[in-house]
């Protein structure tokens, strides 16, 4: 057979198409809509003899190519659309499609069917023991906090799997496990611990509501968050008549959204629902002359974001701090992101008028993400006692000091004075006094500014400086605030550093600066500091 014109044309097209991803990767000719999700991409690995011979180069290169090749996003969307359209399937491991295009979290579905617990507990008995101990510790922490006029309560946000279980995919229910939501609800009620359980309420209300409690293609509540938080703030108020501002709201009104978060993470070509609707309530905050805005420390999961998305939260609260899964910290109404080790837990707790543990129903088997254990240790155990008890526990259990320290963080009950009493008899008095003074210092803006400069001069963290200053107050020593050798440059530097820190916690800002660094061919650190300096200079 001879080469015909058609063969030549087809083969030329083939070669062009084979080369197209490489060309797109190198020159970025066509604009491609990025995929939703984690965007940090692997760098092109450096080829060295070592990296090549041990195979690391090859692994990294495969990873690099798979994350960077041209038109990757389109190709993935095409395949995702195919498996979605034909099989209602997704490769996003945390999302499970239900009936009639409803989307659920896989962890929540497993919790509903009783299989999630096995990731944490091997038997139902072990789960029960753990839950009972946790309820006991929650009650103890409540008693400890009561002595500082702080209310500790819990809020069980609704879970879509329990409210709309009729749309769940079919699976066999494991009847050998216990349901953490029901178990905790009953146990907390029996122990007299203040708790709001929203799932049952929404489940009973869902047929009377004009719109669904949850969007079909998202797992977080939208307009219904207002009902939930209204209940929460009323409940908080009922505990101590604090005078929290009241929430007034009207009827839900629909508005168009392009795509919900969970649906977006499926990275499909076409939307699941042609016109996704969300609903918003017109909210007004009522605050008369007797009302008082509380400082609230929230510990829990992503359901908290309904609070600032659906409500003017700064009109309800005086200050807010969020311990997200008790790992990341979001401070203030600007949600400045910090890591757990950057804050002083004791100060965060003592600063609050309310400590609210809130989490959605399906996450309850994880208890309080170890917050209660940490809080009890911080409030009750001084450094010296901790040291002595660690040695004692290590000796008695015949384990190393490090193992004993780790064990205590898991089981604070091992420390004498915390265990088996309603209200622990011991207190971390000195640290508490320091923390309380530090919190008072923090209320004084000028004092804080002076301490920031001192932190910069001494190369210490602000938290350390607060501690030193609080100690100075407690022992009548000369205060750091009163040092006068402060220059304009020092203040400028502090402000720049602060702004840089703030930006580092802002994902959008980071992306913007990364782009800018790329465009200007400078490294990221140079750009972030240059921009921060420019902003402060403008002020």
């Amino acid at each position, binding site marked *: 057979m001879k*080469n015909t014109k058609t*063969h030549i044309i087809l083969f030329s097209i083939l070669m062009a198409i084979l080369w197209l991803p490489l060309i797109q990767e190198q020159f970025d000719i066509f604009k491609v809509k990025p995929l939703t999700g984690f965007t940090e991409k692997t760098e092109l690995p450096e080829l060295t003899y070592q990296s090549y011979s041990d195979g690391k180069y090859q692994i990294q290169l495969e990873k690099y190519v798979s994350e960077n090749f041209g038109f990757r996003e389109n190709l993935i969307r095409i395949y995702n659309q195919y498996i979605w359209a034909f099989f209602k399937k997704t490769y996003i491991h945390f999302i499970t499609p239900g009936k009639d295009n409803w989307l659920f979290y896989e962890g929540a579905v497993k919790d509903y069917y009783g299989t999630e617990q096995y990731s944490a507990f091997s038997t139902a008995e072990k789960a029960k023991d753990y839950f009972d101990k946790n309820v006991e510790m929650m009650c103890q922490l409540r008693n400890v906090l009561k002595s500082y006029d702080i209310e500790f309560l819990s809020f069980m946000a609704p879970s879509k799997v329990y409210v709309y279980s009729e749309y769940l995919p079919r699976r066999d229910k494991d009847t050998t496990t216990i349901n953490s939501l029901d178990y905790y609800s009953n146990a907390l009620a029996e122990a007299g611990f203040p708790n709001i359980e929203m799932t049952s309420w929404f489940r009973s209300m869902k047929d009377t509501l004009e719109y669904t409690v949850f969007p079909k293609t998202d797992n977080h509540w939208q307009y219904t968050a207002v009902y939930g938080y209204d209940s929460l703030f009323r409940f908080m108020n009922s505990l101590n008549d604090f005078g929290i501002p009241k929430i007034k709201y009207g009827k839900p009104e629909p508005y168009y959204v392009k795509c919900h978060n969970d649906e977006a993470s499926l990275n499909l070509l076409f939307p699941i629902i042609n016109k996704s609707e969300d609903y918003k309530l017109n909210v007004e905050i009522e605050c008369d002359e007797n009302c008082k805005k509380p400082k609230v420390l929230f510990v829990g999961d992503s359901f908290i974001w309904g609070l600032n998305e659906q409500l003017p939260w700064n009109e309800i609260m005086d200050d807010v701090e969020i311990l997200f899964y008790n790992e990341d910290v979001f401070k203030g109404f600007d949600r400045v992101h910090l890591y757990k080790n950057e804050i002083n837990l004791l100060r965060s707790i003592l600063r609050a008028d309310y400590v609210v543990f809130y989490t959605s129903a399906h996450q309850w088997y994880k208890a309080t993400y170890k917050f209660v254990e940490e809080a009890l240790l911080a409030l009750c155990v001084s450094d010296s006692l901790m040291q002595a008890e660690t040695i004692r526990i290590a000796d008695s259990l015949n384990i190393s000091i490090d193992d004993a320290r780790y064990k205590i963080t898991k089981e604070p009950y091992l420390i004498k004075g915390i265990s088996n009493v309603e209200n622990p008899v011991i207190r971390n008095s000195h640290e508490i006094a320091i923390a309380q003074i530090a919190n008072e210092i923090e209320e004084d803006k000028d004092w804080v500014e002076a301490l920031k400069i001192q932190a910069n001069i001494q190369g210490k963290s602000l938290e350390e400086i607060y501690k030193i200053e609080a100690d100075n107050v407690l022992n009548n020593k000369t205060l750091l605030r009163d040092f006068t050798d402060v220059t304009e440059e020092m203040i400028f530097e502090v402000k720049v550093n602060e702004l840089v820190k703030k930006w580092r916690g802002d994902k959008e800002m980071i992306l913007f600066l990364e782009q800018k660094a790329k465009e200007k061919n400078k490294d990221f650190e140079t750009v972030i500091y240059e921009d921060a300096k420019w902003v402060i200079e403008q002020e």
Partner: protein
Amino acid sequence: MVFSSNVFLLYFFPIFLALYFITPKKLRNYTLLIASLIFYAYGAPEFVIQLIVSNIANFYLVKYMHKSEKPLVKKILCGISITISIGLLFYYKYGNFSIQNFNFLAGLFGREPIEWMQILLPIGISFFSFQSVTYTLDTYRGVNEPMKRLSDYMLYITMFPQLVAGPIIRYCDIADQIRERESLMSDRLQGFYRFVLGLSKKILIADVIGYQVDKILGPSNYDILTTAQLNDIASKIANLDSTTAWIVILAFTFQIYFDFAGYSDMAIGLGRMLGFRFPENFDNPYVSTSISEFWRRWHQTFSVFIKNYLYFPLGGSRVKTEARKYFNLWFCFLMSGLWHGAAWNFVIYGALQGIFICADKLFLVKWLNKLGRIPSVIITFAIIVLTRCFFRIERIDLSWLFIKRLFAFDFVPFHFSDNPHFYTTMLIAAFFSFITLSKFGLRWQEKVYFTEYNTKQHIIAFVLSLFGFIFCLGALNATGFSPFIYFRF
């Protein structure tokens, strides 16, 4: 490097094709050789030098063997050449296994075990060792002249399309093509269609099915697992209901076919793009009416190799006693089993195949013929499925446990809606596995695989292949990456 990897599909493939086709015809073998060495060196950096050195040694040994006129010298050189090829294969593939078993026996007799470093298996060694054996023996037997140029010999052994998982190409089948071949545009195109067909079999069928198999039986190579992971697999198997157990082993039966046949299609397709005609490796094995027929249809180039280079030298069927004939048959299949992996499960797998082959010769084929075609296919397929338990589950105790679950008869209701993607893919796999039972299927297969396309057919196949290629790239990147099962053999 793996054909179904991004580095191959997006970097190596387009760059190599462009370079190959802009190279003048006379120099194309060099381009292909360099590309093949890069291809191998990329995945097995520690073995590439050894591959080159052993090939050079073999080339000159065979050259001198051919030149020599003394039969004894010829014999000695031939023996040395084969010893190098098979010796390396034995050392790398069976070194660990031999010492492990030796140490086990030593332990039984209260002797100290031998200390040794775990030997890594060079990728593709089972395939290229066999090819170098065919080169030596075909030249020794006078079937072909040896290669004149070292580069041509190196190319025969290391040619990347078939280097790591076959087809095992006998020297006599390709010698002329290496020296001279035509590269038509229509071949390039049809080669690409075949390549995409193989890629689709691998990514859209084998990997989808394999994902579910691995969920229960763990990864296909148990050597890399910890005791805890093995215990986890054991507990999963012990708790299997019979429905799931049958689905899993059936799924694996389809997975291994589409995985390996997919690779062979890709190799044959790539070869055709470059102007080569590689032998076929599969011929609808699951429509076989007996186990003997199955082995004529499954991994055909391997069966041919075993027949020519093991079964015949043992005496084949021209032996004095019937017992010896059956022993030869059985032994060949035992060796085939061991070739798949240095582990007792593969020995049992091979031995079982050998037993069924002997049973075929003795009575089974006659008996199956009486039953008719469809029942024979079903019974043969059932035997294949059952023996696959020993192939897939690399620990004999777990294989037995699995077989017990198959016959525990604790069937539970089956729900298609639990995993429609998997079940649909299984149905597609079954459809294409058995379609050639019908004349219509055979006709279509002939048209798709073996006919020269006319212009209209080219355009349709081109569009479908491009779509398939794009689709496979999407699937590969949406679901992650998996290597071919036969790469480790």
